[in-house]
């Protein structure tokens, strides 16, 4: 059964049609590369899945059950986590504090709640080890490399045992060596049965990890095929419109 199914999703903002009749399915442990030019509707689609706003028409089902998300917390509760393009990290806090931000672990002493740093450092350390990242729980995010920052943002999504992780341009602003690190993080998520939607402009990154490529153009889905039977040239053609559909 499909993990997530989008049926004929459309979205318009006033007179502007941002998405037209987009249907999409996600299977567990699948990495889908979502590609398209600026304004093609990738972000709108991801924001609908993440609960930032509801679709104008169309329905979503998760594991066969219809779902409606009014707020990002609704989507999070259903098991959908998002890694924002700017990662949403606080530079002045440690890696562990960022992972647990808004979901801190506490000891209870009667009415008092005291932060349980030991447990947070331990759990964060385990998550970084799982992700095969060298990030250390006590280090300040300010002093971290781009790859380590990604690991912190991804570790945060792992706290809640998510089913789907949406990643918005995770490799846009980091060095080549760190890109490899992030792609490995994505593979680790996939190996644990998590479905990953990867939005990216970078063709080689998408082809390195994606099982399936979805191409959007002017609010419509113009291609949805296994990465193994596609090619960067074809996808480029689809994005620009040189190739109509595939």
């Amino acid at each position, binding site marked *: 059964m499909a993990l997530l199914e989008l049926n004929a999703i459309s979205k318009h903002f006033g007179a502007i049609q941002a998405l037209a009749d987009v249907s999409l399915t996600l299977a567990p442990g699948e990495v889908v590369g979502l590609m398209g030019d600026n304004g093609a509707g990738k972000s709108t689609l991801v924001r609908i899945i993440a609960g930032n706003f509801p679709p104008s028409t169309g329905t979503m089902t998760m594991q066969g059950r219809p779902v409606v998300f009014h707020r990002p917390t609704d989507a999070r509760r259903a098991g959908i986590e998002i890694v924002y393009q*700017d990662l*949403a990290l*606080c530079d002045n806090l440690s890696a562990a504090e960022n992972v647990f*931000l808004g979901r801190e672990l506490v000891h209870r002493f009667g009415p008092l*709640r005291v932060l349980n740093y030991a447990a947070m450092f331990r759990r964060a*350390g385990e998550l970084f*080890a799982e992700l095969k990242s060298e990030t250390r729980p*006590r*280090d300040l995010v300010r002093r971290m490399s781009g790859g380590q920052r990604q690991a912190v943002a991804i570790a*945060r999504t792992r706290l809640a045992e998510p089913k789907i992780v949406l990643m918005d341009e995770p490799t846009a602003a980091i060095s080549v060596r760190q890109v490899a690190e992030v792609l490995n993080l994505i593979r680790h998520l996939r190996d644990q049965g998590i479905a990953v939607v990867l939005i990216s402009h970078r063709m080689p990154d998408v082809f390195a990890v994606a099982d399936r490529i979805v191409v959007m153009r002017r609010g419509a889905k113009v291609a949805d095929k296994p990465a193994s039977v596609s090619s960067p040239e074809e996808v480029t053609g689809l994005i620009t419109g040189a190739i109509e559909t595939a």
Partner: protein
Amino acid sequence: MSKNPVDRTPPPGTASLDTAIAAREHRGLLAWLASQQTFWVSVAALIAFVVLSLVSDVFATQQNLFNVTRNFAFVAIIAIGMTAVIITGGIDLSVGAVLVLSGMVIGMTMNAGMSIWLAVPLALGVALAVGAFNGMLIAYVGVPSFVVTLGTLSIARSLAMVLSNNRMVYEFGPDQPQLLWLGGGFVNLPLPLVDAVRVPNPVLFLLLVLVVTGLALRWTRWGRHLFAIGGNERAALLTGVPVRRVKLSVYMFCSLTAGIAGILEVGWLGTITTSLGQGMELSVIAAAVIGGANLSGGAGTAFGAVVGAALIEVIRNSLILLGISTFWQGSFVGGFIVVAVLFDRLRARSSSD
């Protein structure tokens, strides 16, 4: 019970995890201290203290130290509240006005014969109400904190004038002795070898506020959320931190510290006029900034605020004792603010590469 050493060998992978968890930025204690602004401010205050003890016969006397600690306690108590606000990236300009309003509420109600047990909660309640007004407009309406608190600075002082008809109040009814003791009294702290040290009551309140706030900043969700909001407010919002509630509470907390200081200061002076605390917000902000609070948010400590306030008071006191015109006071305090901010810039630059 002895354990087989083999049993204690951790399974592979565990050791590296433990070291990763334990790992800090190990640079030695001295290097860590040297990177702390609070440390340098403490050193500066200490040097000033030693130099003054040597050059002035009066400075290190019981009576003068008693005065110095009591005088700085009022600014320091509010500087702790201000630091909490500054950590979130905000500012509260209304503290001096809240101080006089709180003092005037307790002065007028006790003057009318009210018990101190009712007057104190009432004064603190008024302070909290001003803080709630600030916080609502800042957190829920989105008005910049500078603008809102500039408005309440004017409003709260004007209310104090309305309340008292701009009179001086010095009769505090049947509970007057208790009020005067609260702000002007002291506790004898017996020490071995030397004479008992008199600790002024405001200093005891300062210690209480310092310990509670210091613990709250480090060990509660609320404290960490203040830092998160100051570091990246959008990130805090996206990760589910109740940003608006936390912001509301921090302005109430800051006003509460001003309210406490107001009551204590009235008790010490034994009189209140509507000019009390005029311009005090500047000393308070200066103390917080000298103590390491970063006006762009995300950094600051309660202890730093107290040390900052202490440094300012030591400078002030020393100028008087050394016979230097007090007109120079502003230059010295201002100089320290600039140096503190420069220090922060230099540190940020050296850690960013």
